């Protein structure tokens, strides 16, 4: 199977271990991975802040880039960016662009959903020693309905003890919300602290998620609070053979 990587600008520049990990896991599962270097950003920050024309321009660009690939699937280590791409259709009035957006979206999958639902695997041959808890990133959870897949994958990693986050729970927002995190930082951090308190109570070595944005938010507060708990991307754990 040939996979074209939708790396996401955040993973590319700030969390390359997530993208690298995704490539390694996909190759381990027998996929050939391509990367089109023309890609930059899916436009989500612009779209979420209300800058539609800018978001549309970037959407058209990304659609064209992925159309030019005849890979079997486009895979991304980010639920929110995958959800954004699935949302592209609604950005356009023109039926031609809507159809093109729909066609690209049908081929685009978030990493854990791709592994479990398309490749049909949950054991990716990984090992990682540690007590972990999972944070459900909102767009992946609610837009893409990703909930079981990452948990199934993590439970099959040798050496991992996976625990569910105590209340307010794995499904509660981390408070990032893109520009919300800097427009309303006090509220963002108030929401975040409830999550970090729960992570503390869980007594884990690391919190894992499928979105680098959440990991930046959670990890940034964990370290500021002097916690030893690490923030890891799912792909990093799945790629690990330590």
């Amino acid at each position, binding site marked *: 199977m040939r996979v074209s990587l939708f*790396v996401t*600008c955040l993973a*590319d*520049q*700030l969390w*390359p*271990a997530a*993208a*690298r990990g995704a*490539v390694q896991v996909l*190759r*381990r599962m*027998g996929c050939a991975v391509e990367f089109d*270097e023309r*890609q*930059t950003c899916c436009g989500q*920050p*612009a779209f*979420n*802040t*209300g*800058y*539609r024309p*800018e978001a549309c*321009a*970037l959407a058209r660009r990304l659609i064209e880039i992925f159309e030019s690939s005849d890979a079997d699937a486009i895979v991304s280590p980010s639920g929110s960016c995958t959800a954004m791409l699935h949302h592209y259709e609604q950005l356009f009035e023109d039926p031609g662009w809507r159809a093109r957006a729909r066609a690209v979206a049908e081929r685009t999958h978030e990493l854990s959903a791709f592994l479990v639902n398309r490749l049909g695997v949950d054991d990716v041959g990984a090992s990682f020693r540690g007590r972990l808890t999972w944070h459900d990133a*909102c*767009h992946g959870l*609610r*837009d893409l309905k990703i909930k079981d897949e990452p948990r199934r994958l993590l439970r099959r990693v040798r050496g991992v003890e996976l625990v569910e986050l105590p*209340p*307010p729970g794995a*499904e*509660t*927002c981390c*408070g*990032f*919300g*893109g*520009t*919300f*995190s*800097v*427009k*309303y*930082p*006090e*509220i*963002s*951090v*108030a*929401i*975040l602290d409830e999550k970090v308190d729960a992570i503390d109570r869980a007594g884990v070595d690391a919190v894992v998620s499928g979105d680098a944005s959440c990991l*930046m*938010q959670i*990890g*940034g*507060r964990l*370290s*500021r609070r002097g916690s030893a708990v690490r923030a890891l991307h799912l792909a990093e754990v799945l790629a690990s053979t330590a």
Partner: protein
Amino acid sequence: MSFDRDARAALADGQLRGALRHATTLFGERRRAAIAEVPDWEGARDRARAIKDETLLHLDRYLEQFAANAERAGAQVHWARDAAQACDIIAGIAARRGARTVVKSKSMASEEIHLNAALAARGIAPVETDLGEYIVQLAGEEPSHIVVPAIHKTKGQIAALFAEKLGMEPSDDVAKLAAAARQALRRRFAEADLGVSGVNFAVAETGTILILENEGNARLTTSLPRTHVALMGIEKVIPRFADLEVFLRLLPRSGTGQALTAYQSLLTGTKRHPADEGPEELHIVLLDNGRSRMLASPVTRQTLACIRCGACLNACPVYRQIGGHAYGSVYPGPIGAVLTPQLLGMGESAELPYASSLCGACRDVCPVKIDIPAVLLHLRAQAVARGGSTGTRALLERLAFASYAAVMARPRLFGWLMACARRLHIVPPLGAWTKWRDLRPLAPRSFRDEWRAGLRHEGGR
């Protein structure tokens, strides 16, 4: 309105935050238990939303049908374009009917139009009879939650309030406090000339209005006084009597986790014989106040499907931290963040659509499946397109997004700029981030650097 300032004040109030945490958690648990009892909850949501969509698409027809049937049954139907007109109508009714004492049951629409102030200006002081509303009225405050308006007050605070205003022996026995309110209000019910209520649903087919409640104050308000005024937003109408079933199944479970509230009053016109129980006159006031505008697009139209259950408030991570007062209007929480800007105009409430992390928890719990994040995004796009906001912050933001768009369209420029930032250790001045969170630096090598340096060629591992 200053959402920012009020939100910060709320965050600093430890007692408020504890109360909000407790209330929203409890309501969430009760809701989950209640909806588990319904065999096809999702089907019920779909049906209810379909009924609302159908109604809104033909709102003029259904309103006319409702008005005709209500009038045929003896009600007098009034139409109010805006808040001021609605207040005039109600004040006029009170004057014509010689009403000096007015009791009110829960009506968010009446707070939206500032009815109490308008009546007070004409020498009539309506008494709120819903316990939570009574408490906030005595305290001179605004409600902070759709279903439990006084959730921000402790029993100690209420005890002090009742001691001061009712001359009650201070006691934080909740049953005693409720009993004190009951006693104080019974006289008012007995003497009231006019009762003002809200309306939960208005049935076009029969001209019936339905009012839900737990305390019994709405029943008293609508059955004892000679005159009953029922105020409703035009979006409250539903087509058929039988449609009530699905909404009665959804609303109480979503709002409080009850299968049904203690009372539903289904009122159709006036009594058939003078000797019957109930008011002599029923006046139904249909309120537009900006609602008709929302019909213009399918995205905004769904705002009007809201049945005011409060489930979105209880699910919202933002509301949970700041409560209702910060939203600066009678409608708080996620629905408030989309309804208030559309009723009042974005100029006054421009901050509200941005006060959300877009997590979507509200959409998950809404019994009529309103896609609140979609409406928030629509309002944000409108705010930017209209270019209304001035000031340095707004200007800088536009500049930032213009640069971002230009750079992201040019991958080589993007790569080069990132490489420069990397080499020169440039850190963006994001004080709003770094005051509370460490900022992750740019990775020493980006993914595309690694790819070019050899990752592209490595085989499967």
